[in-house]
């Protein structure tokens, strides 16, 4: 409860100092994967290990969504046979994992990043081209405007 309060506080009251964008990593093709390199702007705010762990889990979740295997083939064939009308009533595997990702990002924000004055934006709201990290002004240290 206290954690969500911090998150809301941050969004409504704190001023945005800057935004950092983590771009996509296309080395393995067109699958959704983000670079795990630690951006220099966050050095003073968050632990490198923690950040890389968050990005790696995010990448794993996206890999799960886009996995081509028995289950996705079954879903695809079933959809084809019903002339794809099944998509009107059923939620696809991809959408289920996207909801999981949204919950993961919210949880990471509440537990780890909001107390440090950072906010991760769910990449799906940006394309998913980038992971947008908003750095809020740290009033406790007394940053100038």
């Amino acid at each position, binding site marked *: 409860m206290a954690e969500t309060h911090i998150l809301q506080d941050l969004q409504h009251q704190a001023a945005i100092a800057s*935004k950092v*964008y983590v771009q*996509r990593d*296309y*080395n*393995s*093709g*067109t699958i959704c994967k983000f670079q795990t390199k630690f951006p220099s702007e966050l050095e003073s705010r968050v632990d490198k290990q923690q950040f890389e762990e968050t990005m790696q889990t995010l990448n794993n979740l996206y890999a799960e*969504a*886009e*996995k*081509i295997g028995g289950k*996705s*083939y079954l*879903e*695809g*064939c079933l*959809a*084809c046979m019903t*002339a*794809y*009308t099944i*998509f009107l009533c059923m939620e*696809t*595997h*991809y*959408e289920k994992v*996207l909801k999981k990702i949204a919950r993961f990002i919210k949880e990471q924000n509440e537990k780890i990043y909001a107390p440090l004055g950072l906010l991760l934006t769910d990449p*799906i*709201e*940006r*394309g*998913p*081209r*980038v992971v*947008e990290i908003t750095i809020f002004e740290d009033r406790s240290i007394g940053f100038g405007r």
Partner: protein
Amino acid sequence: TCNGHSYIMKNCEYQQIDARALGTPASSFQPCTEMKVPRLRRKWEVFPGKNRFYCDGRIILARQSGILPLTLGLIVVTSVLFFAFDCPFLVTHLTVCIPVIGGVLFLFVVISLLQTSLTDPGILPRALPDEAADIEKQIYTSGSSMYRPPPRTKEILINQQVVKLKYCFTCKMFRPPRTSHCSLCDNCVERFDHHCPWVGNCVGKRNYRFFYSFIVSLSFHTSFIFGCVVTHLTLRSQGGNGLVQAVQESPLVICFFSIWSVLGLSGFHTYLVASNLTTNEDIKGSWSSKRGAEDSGNPYTYNSIFINCCATLCGPMPPSLIDRRGFLPPDDIPPVAAADLELSSFLAKNDTNMVGMPSSGHTS
């Protein structure tokens, strides 16, 4: 100052007229906020591309629906002629399965066609101003001298192959691999295949499977009708009754001309699906074997026809990225309109300055 005062008066008069126009009592004590509460707008209303939306954002169409009505019309007319004139004869002489099969194929064709036309092909939302500024900053810092325009391409490695990513000036971002900007729809589309005028929409990542099932089922449907019509005419000519009239009423001519093009297109797309290529890449010769020694330069292929087909047609179905039915937050200005708003406030500032100048001239 007289001029400054008259400007303020004009403002008040304008507001009062507004109140009367809205039908509320023209009282100067009316709080302004009551008039100005906007209704919540959905994101499709501020969509920057050239698309049209119906049913409050549920249905999306390209700006130019092209010849989609013609396509639908041709299919419906051909099928109706078949059901009306060939089926009765064939049901009595052959089997009742014929109209049943024809009906199923017809339904499949029409449903696939509508799904191809009315689905978001994989439109990428444009970069928000902050993101665009960040990308610009990265381009300028990594670019060469100040006198040459900085390069707007980025080279990356995909499966040990060099691929060039181009910067899209309209959407203000580097296009992901296999993405192309459609000038007719004014959108960047993922895994862009081509813009199909028959279907009235782009064919991209999200609707390629619908497009493929449309042309394949259409091939079957046209071949089926053609076969039935030929059978019908053959049987009639053997019986010797009403051959000429049957030829006139049958959809023979439409079928004959369309069958070759549809079959050809299906064959071509089957080749594309099996080699995990898009029409765009094939036409441009992006991975042609002339460049390198290897026989396939395509970095996206799984090197297996079966896996390529499965990945393209039965792969996971990503959701639409443009979230057209989502609501815009009432406090925020829509991102693309923000630039316009800044411009208009800049002009307003200039206007007040201009109004102020004569007044200051008067006082001095």
